[in-house]
């Protein structure tokens, strides 16, 4: 028999009432006046700072319990405190994308009658990693505990860790090969996993028997529960101090103030109007082992985004015209899309004031049903939803930045995030044990440029604002590969007046194993999935994988001969091919192959960020320093930027200002001679559009967008003055 809840409070009715009040008044929970804030603003602010401190301190404590290098090294964790209805009041630093997804999880339990069964009681622990309930992807496992005070539910404490192993069809957490839910791994669907502050033994056994590397998941559970209990006890002590009535009121006011602050911030930093942008993602798997014949092996997705900023400061993002969900792991749920919005706002607009769910309430997402942003089938896989989320929210960052530039806040304008290709692995570890893990050095891509300076080199990803690649030694402890190189990739930032941040490439020697499965995900094939701004170019993103099987590296090492430490700067012949003998592999798209063994060499590149402004305006002196430090090659400085470099007596590059001026004048003249009026280009290109003279994947992309969106169809037809439907969907009803 189930124990009944300690409280007679009907939280479900309270949630409905709260939503009704918001609908009716436009203010969170019907709070039209910030009474407590007005009464004593200092107390109000101090209390929120305390809550934030509880969160930050609980997260730091939890990171020291975790065994996972993802959580310990890279900080793949966030914690937050919620109202009884599940709205975030305060949060820690870390992967803030999950603050609102956790909110959805709590609300889902409340809406689904959890008060009656399985009951919500003091000491209970609930967990979830189902993205259709409220997370982004299967490795993002969240735990929440209710906070009771004097028998009343007064809030929730929640924590999320990104797990390095999820027990899916391919090892690691971002299960690249998942094509349906059933291959994504271990699901915990809003489940009560513990009582009386203790995780149930049977739940731990399930984890231990269904994961390749249960130590990460299980210790992360303990870390999360510890952080939740820590926050819960801190909140209860605070309520003892300020009184229950004050808490119930002030926690709501915090959120309403967060909402108002977001609207005010939008009015302060931006310009109202309609902003548009797009990006693409290409995927190539034809002929690769393991893919089921459900979806297209190769496909191209378009991601158009229209953002409206209304005069009351609301931001509305509309994804109409994008592609349908597919049998691949890159779909996203509305929870994930919310998460993307939340983490972007917290980084780019809410850098002061109360950061909480109020900011999210000042925005609106329009996610067309049936697309990858809002699948109409809950069996689809979402394990690598970041593959599409990152490019999409990179567009959002550029749209916001256009607004910052209009308003004059150029120091906030940012060309945006890029995808962070992930490498995951499993098999037999260097200790002879079964293992599986994701490698999180991808948390250090190059960032897009700013409107006043170059982007960050190897130091930024959108999903964790505290981006950190982790220490090589820690990664080496956890995988049967040793680094033989980690290098900046020259010219990997998008070119521009301010270049995008550069990426890096890692080169590993597979060591002490005869079975290592390597799988990569979240990098685009055949297209750019990022962009430049104001004349800057996108960064290159569609990098191939290079490996050498059965290499002669041990012989070379014995002879003290030079080894390959990176792929080099010749795209047609890599350093691996130049220096190593063996079976050379160059693979486009996800790297899914037969297992590797000791002596094989593998490389993996990450992405740089997009550039800002016209390349011909780049500072020659800064460029000389870039060449000296390996961020740009001398050839690129001259060929792309028009910057002529000499060498000083010590052989270091020095800008030749006069020669640069002359060369740039020639380049500008050539540019003008080569360019033709857009109207002329449209007239010529129209013929190609009329005959649909495109690659099959491009035609399929148009047909899919046209099928799902009348607006896309209309805009396409109007632009080219054609009937898009008859071109791409011949035989369809007009």
């Amino acid at each position, binding site marked *: 028999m189930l124990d009944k809840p300690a409280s007679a409070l009907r939280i479900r009715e309270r949630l409905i009432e709260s939503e009704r009040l918001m609908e009716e008044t436009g203010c969170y929970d019907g709070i039209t006046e910030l009474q407590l804030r007005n009464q004593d603003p200092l107390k109000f602010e101090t209390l929120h700072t305390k809550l934030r401190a509880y969160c930050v301190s609980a997260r730091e404590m939890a990171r020291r319990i975790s065994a996972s290098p993802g959580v310990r090294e890279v900080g793949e964790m966030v914690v937050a405190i919620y109202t009884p209805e599940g709205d975030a009041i305060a949060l820690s630093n870390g992967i803030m994308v999950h603050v609102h997804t956790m909110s959805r999880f709590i609300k889902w339990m409340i809406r689904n009658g959890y008060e009656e069964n399985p009951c919500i009681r003091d000491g209970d622990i609930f967990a979830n990693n189902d993205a259709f309930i409220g997370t982004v992807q299967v490795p993002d496992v969240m735990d929440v505990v209710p906070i009771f005070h004097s028998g009343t539910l007064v809030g929730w404490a929640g924590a999320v860790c990104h797990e390095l192993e999820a027990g899916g069809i391919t090892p690691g957490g971002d299960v690249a090969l998942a094509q349906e839910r059933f291959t994504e791994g271990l699901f915990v669907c809003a489940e009560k996993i513990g009582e009386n502050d203790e995780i149930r033994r049977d739940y731990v056994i399930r984890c231990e028997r269904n994961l390749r590397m249960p130590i990460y998941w299980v210790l992360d559970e303990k870390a999360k529960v510890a952080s939740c209990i820590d926050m819960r006890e801190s909140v209860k002590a605070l309520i003892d101090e300020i009184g229950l009535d004050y808490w119930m009121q002030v926690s709501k006011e915090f959120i309403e103030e967060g909402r108002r602050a977001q609207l005010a911030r939008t009015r*302060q930093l931006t*310009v*109202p*109007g309609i*902003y548009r*942008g*797009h990006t*693409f993602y*290409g995927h190539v798997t034809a002929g690769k082992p393991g893919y089921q014949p459900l979806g297209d092996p190769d496909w191209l997705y*378009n991601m158009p985004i229209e953002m409206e900023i209304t005069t009351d400061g609301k931001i509305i993002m509309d994804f109409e015209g994008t592609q349908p969900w597919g049998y691949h792991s890159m779909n996203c749920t509305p929870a994930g899309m919310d998460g993307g919005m939340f983490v972007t706002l917290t980084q780019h607009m809410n850098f002061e004031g109360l950061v909480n769910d109020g900011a999210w309430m000042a925005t609106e997402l329009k996610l067309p049903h049936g697309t990858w942003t809002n699948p109409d089938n809950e069996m689809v896989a979402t394990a690598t939803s970041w593959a599409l989320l990152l490019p999409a929210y990179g567009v959002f960052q550029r749209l916001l930045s*256009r607004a910052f*530039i*209009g*308003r*004059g*806040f*150029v*120091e*906030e304008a940012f060309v945006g995030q890029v995808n962070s290709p992930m490498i995951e692995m499993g098999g037999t570890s260097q200790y002879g044990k079964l293992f599986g893990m994701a490698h999180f050095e991808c948390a250090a891509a190059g960032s897009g440029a700013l*409107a006043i*300076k170059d982007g960050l080199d190897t130091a930024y990803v959108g999903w964790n604002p505290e981006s950190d690649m982790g220490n090589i030694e820690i990664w080496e402890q956890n995988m049967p590969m040793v680094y033989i190189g980690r290098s900046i990739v020259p*010219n*990997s930032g998008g070119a521009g007046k301010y270049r995008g941040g550069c990426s890096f490439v890692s080169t590993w020697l597979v060591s002490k194993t005869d079975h290592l499965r390597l799988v990569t995900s979240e990098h685009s094939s*055949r*297209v750019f999935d990022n*962009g*430049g*701004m*104001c*004349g800057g*170019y996108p960064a*290159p993103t*569609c*990098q191939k994988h290079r490996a050498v099987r059965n290499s002669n590296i041990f012989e070379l090492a014995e002879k003290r001969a030079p080894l390959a430490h990176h792929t080099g*700067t010749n*795209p047609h012949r890599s350093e691996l091919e130049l220096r190593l003998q063996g079976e050379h592999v160059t693979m486009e798209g996800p790297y899914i192959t037969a297992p590797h063994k000791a002596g094989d060499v593998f490389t993996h590149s990450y992405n740089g960020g997009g550039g*800002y*402004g*016209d*390349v011909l305006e780049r500072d020659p002196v800064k460029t000389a320093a870039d060449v000296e430090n390996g961020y740009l090659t001398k*050839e*690129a400085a001259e*060929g*792309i930027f028009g910057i002529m470099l000499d060498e000083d007596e010590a052989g270091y590059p020095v800008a030749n200002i006069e020669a640069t001026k002359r060369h740039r004048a020639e380049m*500008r*003249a050539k*540019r003008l001679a080569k*360019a*033709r*009026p*857009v*109207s002329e*280009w*449209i007239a010529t*290109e129209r013929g*190609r559009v009329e005959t649909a003279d*495109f*690659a099959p994947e*491009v035609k399929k992309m148009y047909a899919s967008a046209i099928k799902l969106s009348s607006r896309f169809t209309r805009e396409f037809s109007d*632009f080219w003055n054609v009937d898009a439907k008859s071109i791409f969907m011949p035989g369809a009803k007009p």
Partner: protein
Amino acid sequence: MTSYSKEVISDLVAGTLPWPQTRRVMSAYKDDDRFFKYVAVLQDRVGWKDPILLPVSDHLFICQSGDERVTRCECGHSFGDYRKNWKLKASIIVRNTEEALREIYPNSDIPDPQWMELREFICPRCGTMHEVEAAAPGYPIVHDFQPDLEGFYREWLGKPL
């Protein structure tokens, strides 16, 4: 209330404000009088008299030109009515061959020109590159920004347009 001199804003916009100072500007409360100082800095930079109403890119501005509001390049070239997409009046270079893409991406793997092209939008008078679009072949040119100019001035800036 935070406020900076026009000189500081000028250096900030030019990217020449020393980093420690820039960092402080980024971390501080935002200056509510930024917009008109910013416009004044840009107005000094351009060689023409039409009042700038709203910057829309690094060298593109919506300005009042007689009775019309147009999108104008810093060199003075007009792209016409600001409500229409200025790109349609620009010049274009399309990089849709391996050779043309290789010029910009000398040492990385490059997109498949059958899947993606680069479109460079250029001022036909001065040759400034105002915008680069990365798009699938056949994708309509995007209209980046349609500001609500009236609403912005009237409701947010509290000044007549």
